[in-house]
């Protein structure tokens, strides 16, 4: 029964809460001692983004285990401090702050969504930390406190457009989730299309997590574009491909090129629904390099036969190795020293040899178009003639001049 209560007790409760907070705030561990070096792992292990980020987390763990088995970095064992971003940007920022200020880690591997990266960026800049961000993203960023090991737009979207044009697909239908990456990607696509005599028939955005695609799929069936450029995120892909199929659109007539569908999402979409459609990445589980064979084997040994590897996982895995190489080059764990050593650091990665471009702190990598097979894996059908230098602001593309403003 509610009563008008005396005010003293709740105030005492507040005092207790303050005391609790104070205890919870006991000083935490320190960065490095003689035998070990601590690094932060910051991905969403709970919440909606856990779907994708747990696999990336696993790949980072794998790389750390490999390096530790190989004698560590500068003779020290890597000791990961794992934090959960909980699919929530504020938590990412908060945990990043904890890792840098309280734990004093040497570097942090983390993030997936652009939102989480944007949230962490000021924290890293303020504390002069170094974040390794493993996912392809919308570009327009080159922070001295972040190393981007995934693709920027000119390493994924533009090559995909080049491919479609080579194949003679000149009318495009754009479908995307309503957030930063698809909106930016579609701006680039539209500018590219204008400059290269291609048609953009429609641009459709749906809210994140949307599942009603029949209006759009029917429209695709009706307008019959040469190809669909798909920047949908996560769950929506499942509904989209299911409904596209029952709308009677086939991969032969109208291939869908997706930039956010990797091996691990295909299981949830159902291989039946997406077989024959296209993807654009820099790495596939089937990429034929010796390093990749070893990587896939090591990963399935560690986490189970049924697990697949994907581009973001591989980029995250590369990040740890690249960091080790840069640290050993610098001979120091200090961020300033490591940053100096970044330019030109290379690693024999599963996707092939990759090199850090010091100016942008992105990675030089090869673009690859793949086709989904009925096993749920992706076969490479096209690759860029040579590794592409990252250009996050698209400064090297005349037609993109209007975009950068």
């Amino acid at each position: 029964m509610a009563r008008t209560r005396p005010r003293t007790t709740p105030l005492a409760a507040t005092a207790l809460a303050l005391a609790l907070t104070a205890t919870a705030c006991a000083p935490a561990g320190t960065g490095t001692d003689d035998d070990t070096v601590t690094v932060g792992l910051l991905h969403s292990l709970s919440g909606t983004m856990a779907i994708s980020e747990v696999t990336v987390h696993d790949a980072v763990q794998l790389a750390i285990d490999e390096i530790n088995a190989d004698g560590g970095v500068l003779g020290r064992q890597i000791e990961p401090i794992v934090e959960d971003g909980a699919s929530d940007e504020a938590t990412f920022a908060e945990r990043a702050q904890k890792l840098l200020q309280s734990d004093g880690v040497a570097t942090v591997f983390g993030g997936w969504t652009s939102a989480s990266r944007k949230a962490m960026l000021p924290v890293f800049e303020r504390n002069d930390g170094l974040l390794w961000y493993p996912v392809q993203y919308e570009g327009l960023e080159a922070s001295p406190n972040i190393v981007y090991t995934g693709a920027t737009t000119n390493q994924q979207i533009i090559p995909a457009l080049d491919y479609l044009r080579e194949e003679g697909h000149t009318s495009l239908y754009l479908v995307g989730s309503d957030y930063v990456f698809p909106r930016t990607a579609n701006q680039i696509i539209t500018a590219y299309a204008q400059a290269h005599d291609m048609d953009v028939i429609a641009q459709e955005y749906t809210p994140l997590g949307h599942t009603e695609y029949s209006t759009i799929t029917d429209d695709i069936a009706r307008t019959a574009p040469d190809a669909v450029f798909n920047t949908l995120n996560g769950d929506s892909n499942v509904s989209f491909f299911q409904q596209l199929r029952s709308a009677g659109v086939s991969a032969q007539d109208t291939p869908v090129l997706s930039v956010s569908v990797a091996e691990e999402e295909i299981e949830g979409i159902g291989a039946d629904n997406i077989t024959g459609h296209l993807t654009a990445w820099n790495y596939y589980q089937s990429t034929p390099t010796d390093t990749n064979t070893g990587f896939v084997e090591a990963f399935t040994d560690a986490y189970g036969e049924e697990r697949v590897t994907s581009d973001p996982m591989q980029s995250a895995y590369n990040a740890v190795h690249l960091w080790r190489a840069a640290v050993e080059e610098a001979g120091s764990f200090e961020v300033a020293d490591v940053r100096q050593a970044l330019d030109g650091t290379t690693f024999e990665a599963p996707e092939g040899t990759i090199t850090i471009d010091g100016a942008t702190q992105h990675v030089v990598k090869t673009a690859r178009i793949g086709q989904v097979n009925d096993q749920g894996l992706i076969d490479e059908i096209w690759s860029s003639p040579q590794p592409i230098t990252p250009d996050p602001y698209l400064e090297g593309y005349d037609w993109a001049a209007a975009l950068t403003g």
Partner: protein
Amino acid sequence: MTLLDIRDLTVTFGAFTALDHIDLTLDHGELRFLIGPNGAGKTTLIDTITGRTRPTSGTITFNGHTLNKRSEHHIVRAGIGRTFQTSVVFEHLTVADNVDLAASFRLRPWQLLRRPRTPHPEVPDLLERVGLTPHTHALAGTLSHGQRQWLEIAMLLAQHPRLLLLDEPVAGMSAAERTRTGELLTRIAADHTVVVIEHDMDFLRRYARQVTVLHEGRILTHGDLATVQNDPRVQEVYLGRTPQETRP
């Protein structure tokens, strides 16, 4: 002098006619008992006067003003107060606060926002009248059933209404509580106009002067208690069916 004038009032719920062309007038200072079997439309009539139910047709005039489209609180402000069959006092407020709240409704909004140093000056007197002074600072939720009814009456009086509508004020009371309520009513009726819905025949015999009988949404008859009791139609209505002394 007429205080309340109801003309040709009809209320329907879908296909069901709850009140069927009612005409009723009340004079200043009257104590009127409203009786009738279950479903006769007594509570609907009170609901319609107080704005809880909208009339389908007809007019209700109070003190010269039409009430038809006014909302409940406006009607209260015009001077009509009521109680309910099941008493609804505010259990989480003290007895004094219940009455104080009822007495304060004419304050301006910003006056309500001030922290009261003392309760409304009339509160002690009102509690005295209904015999709840010993319980002034108790939570209303701790009162017995009879005490709650008295508290409701005190709250009603605090509003200084010109017309009081009481819906079965003695239902569920003990004999002693009934007597006390009856006396309270008589005192109140001395300077208020009061309408009481009641079933209890014994209570009626002791306190009723003028009685109106409702049946199936119509006014069956009207007059002093003896006349009404001897009316064969009234006997038929009450005897022709199961006796309806109390309700579930």
